[in-house]
């Protein structure tokens, strides 16, 4: 990286700073950064919840928290990590990267994008804050009804959960419509589907999972909300309701949700691995098809979460088979990553360490997943710590490792500076050891019969050593996270200046300055292959590998301006590019919507007239803000 010295340190222009500019931004990159910071904040919250739980479980019969508090902690840890950390961290990358990777100036609906973020922030606070008063949701992140109906969960706890998830669902859905449109409709000339970077491809699949899976949980939650607030009988067993209705609806959403969490991380490491092996991704087409296959099959495996309820041999067999089947496209991806590295000139920079970490850790989680696909085996493991070990290898070892890989890789593009390699290495090893020390012993405590979700246990069951190890591992993870945050904030200010392309990477986002100007591309590029920058600067890396390349004449039918590497910064105004106006209206629409939906907790607290009057007022304010937004010009 001798060239980076030539680049000037990144400076923010005058009009792009200040609180107001962040509240009213509609720039996909800034919204991505807002998502990143917010999700990292919630990562700390969810991590602290886990740390308290692990402290409680360090030894038998501790009394750090009560049973009720423990219920709230595991519920909020799961809910936070799934909906407020991994999904939004992925969203941070969707926002920041998709337009850059496909050669666009923004997303299709910039203001809707801002709206998604604000709904996420307010909804996240709505569902998180109750834990400060120990009135947080306490029914597990899966919230099984009828346990969560008013009869069995009378307090406000589940009300916060039901309404909070409805709010967060709206954020995810709005973002998904936006990204689907962006990817279908805003690709630069020549950027065919089969030339898209793998991260964009996996994100594309994820958006379809979101729009097809979230409506199902929306309805499940509506039923629960109506049962709790308006006396309907959807989950009322005495009225003839099916005790499995919730479980089916929840997992029809819940299993695609697992792929919503992991596929973006798969996409990120698929960017990192070729780059640090200096070789094109092995089997690009098969990677795309296996991603789509995972998306399809993801809708056909939900009942493997329910083997223990006794669905009968036919259903168990069917879901067992589909579950084994879905291991195939996933395994294909693992092998393709390994073959990508095979024979490459591997450079073990921090992003690469985390990417290889994902391959190793996800494989362990994947293998225990295949064990669960067999109902007889699963019956032994259901509701034990073995399952906890499994999904933490998949989601922490897989999704979080992949996201860390992505943060180290794209930090220079976001901030203009590189993260510190030494601290990155320290973070990786502490994280790697901490993760294995925390979760590997859970396989054993689970096999020895330790159930999930218990707040304490008696001595003499053989669980003490494994629990002590898990707790120590958790503390190590706390330390590793502190190292990460130190590195993050230190490098933001004083990291090595990165320049446009610190990694000699192949895709479009590296052709523009770091951080990119608000218009991204001064000139929309013409894309002639999967690896346009390598074709231009390092043709030896793609020599002899089919990467869907064509000449510019083939793409446009004429000679066009070649790929343009821009280093000087000019404003959008100087270039004559129309940019969307900043606006606060999506924020207000989001705020009033969250208050309106969240305001339904008042149902059990206030007289009906106050409740109705509050909701109508907030609905009017929301509709008013929405009309103000829709009637003001975009640019």
């Amino acid at each position, binding site marked *: 990286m001798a060239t980076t010295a030539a680049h000037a340190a990144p400076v923010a222009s005058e009009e792009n700073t200040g609180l107001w500019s962040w509240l009213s931004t509609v720039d996909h990159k800034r919204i991505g950064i807002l998502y990143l910071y917010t999700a990292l904040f919630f990562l700390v919250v969810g991590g602290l919840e886990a740390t308290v739980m692990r402290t409680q479980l360090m030894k038998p019969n501790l009394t750090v928290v009560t049973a009720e508090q423990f219920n709230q902690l595991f519920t909020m840890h799961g809910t936070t990590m799934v909906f407020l950390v991994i999904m939004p961290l992925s969203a941070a990358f969707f926002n920041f990267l998709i337009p850059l990777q496909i050669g666009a100036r923004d997303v*299709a609906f910039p203001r809707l994008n801002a709206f998604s973020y604000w709904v996420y922030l307010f909804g996240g606070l709505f569902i998180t804050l109750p834990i400060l008063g120990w009135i947080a949701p306490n029914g597990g992140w899966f919230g099984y009804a009828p346990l969560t109906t008013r009869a069995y969960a009378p307090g406000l706890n589940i009300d916060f959960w039901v309404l909070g998830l409805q709010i967060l669902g709206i954020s995810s859905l709005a973002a998904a419509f936006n990204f689907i449109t962006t990817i279908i409709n*805003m690709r630069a*000339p020549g950027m065919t589907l089969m030339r898209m970077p793998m991260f964009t491809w996996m994100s594309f699949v994820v958006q379809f999972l979101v729009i097809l899976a979230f*409506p199902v949980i929306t309805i499940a939650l509506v039923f629960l909300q109506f049962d709790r607030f308006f006396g309907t*009988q959807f989950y009322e067993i005495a009225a003839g309701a099916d005790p499995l209705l919730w479980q089916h609806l929840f997992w029809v959403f819940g299993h695609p949700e697992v792929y919503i969490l992991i596929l973006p991380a798969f996409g990120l490491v698929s960017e990192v691995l070729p780059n640090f092996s200096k070789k094109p991704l092995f089997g690009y087409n098969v990677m795309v098809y296996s991603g789509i296959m995972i998306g399809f099959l993801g809708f056909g495996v939900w009942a493997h979460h329910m083997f223990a309820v006794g669905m009968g041999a036919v259903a168990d067999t069917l879901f067992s088979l589909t579950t084994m089947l879905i291991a195939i496209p996933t395994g294909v991806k693992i092998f393709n990553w390994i073959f990508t590295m095979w024979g490459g000139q591997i450079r073990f920079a921090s992003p690469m360490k985390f990417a290889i970490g994902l391959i190793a850790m996800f494989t362990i989680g994947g293998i225990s997943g295949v064990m669960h696909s067999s109902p007889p085996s699963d019956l032994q493991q259901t509701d034990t710590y073995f399952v906890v070990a499994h999904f933490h290898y998949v989601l922490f070892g897989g999704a979080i490792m992949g996201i860390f890989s992505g943060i180290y890789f794209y930090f220079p593009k976001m901030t203009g500076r590189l993260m510190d390699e030494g601290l990155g290495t320290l973070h990786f090893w502490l994280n790697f050891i901490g993760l294995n020390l925390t979760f590997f012993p859970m396989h054993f405590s689970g096999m020895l019969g330790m159930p999930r979700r218990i707040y304490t246990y008696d001595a003499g069951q053989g669980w003490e050593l494994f629990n002590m190890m898990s707790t120590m591992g958790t503390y190590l993870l706390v330390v590793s996270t502190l190292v990460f945050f130190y590195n993050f904030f230190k490098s933001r200010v004083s990291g090595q200046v990165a320049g446009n392309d610190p990694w000699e990477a192949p895709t479009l986002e590296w052709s523009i300055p770091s951080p990119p100007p608000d218009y991204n591309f001064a000139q*929309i590029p013409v894309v002639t292959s999967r690896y346009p920058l390598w074709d231009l600067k390092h043709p030896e890396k793609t020599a002899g590998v089919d990467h869907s390349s064509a000449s510019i004449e083939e793409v446009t039918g004429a000679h066009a301006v070649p790929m343009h590497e821009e280093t000087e910064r000019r404003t959008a105004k100087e270039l004559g590019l129309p940019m969307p106006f900043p606006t606060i209206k999506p924020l207000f629409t989001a705020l009033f919507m969250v208050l309106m939906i969240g305001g339904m907790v008042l149902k059990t607290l206030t007289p009906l007239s106050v409740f109705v009057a509050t909701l109508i007022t907030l609905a009017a304010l929301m509709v008013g803000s929405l009309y103000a937004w829709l009637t003001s010009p975009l640019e």
Partner: protein
Amino acid sequence: MATDAAHDAHEHHHYTTTGLDHKKIAIWAFIGSECMLFMSLISTYLIYKGKSVVGPWPHEFWCKATNTAAATAEALAGCPADQIYKPILNIPVTSASTFVLLMSSLAMVLALAAVEMKDQPLPAGAGLGDRMLRSSKLWLWMTAILGATFLGFQAYEFTSFVHEGLTIKTNLFGSSFFTLTGFHGAHVTAGVIWLLTLLAIDYKRGLGPKDALKVDIAALYWHFVDVVWIAIFTLIYLIQ
């Protein structure tokens, strides 16, 4: 192929990969998502069909005193007259409201056509009919009024069900029926508000061919809500 050159001072013709407007793609994705929403609601209704432990029932007579159901009132011999509940679903009335909603889709098609044709000169000897076909206001009003009429039918239906002893709390049928049709009604309501918004624009500055996309997207939504009702009418009302 630098797109900055393609910018006209008055009209922002953004380059799009497919040549379609972003909103058109987004509305189709939205409709796909809505399909899953209604599928979940309809599936739950069907799963719970016949599972209610007390009446009233959608297609059967019900004796409250003995909690038995039968296809005809006569089959409930011995049941006191004031304890007999008739089948709740009123198929003739709902057929009428279904017809109204279908006609609203026709009006919507004509509204879009009127907006698209607004700038074309009337043919020689054009009569009242030709002039009516050019009136976007007429057809937008027609669509909105027919949609509101459908909502009126639904309000009548809901009220009469409550009078006949079926509320959202009564049994599984009541819960799943009111939630499903209520969700559909809410979608129609949103559609009517959308149409009134288009009308407001039409009165303010007139809708012309350049607004065809706006109307087209509202129309796609409106037709979708209509198609969902066809599924509901068939599965819930017609199939016993």
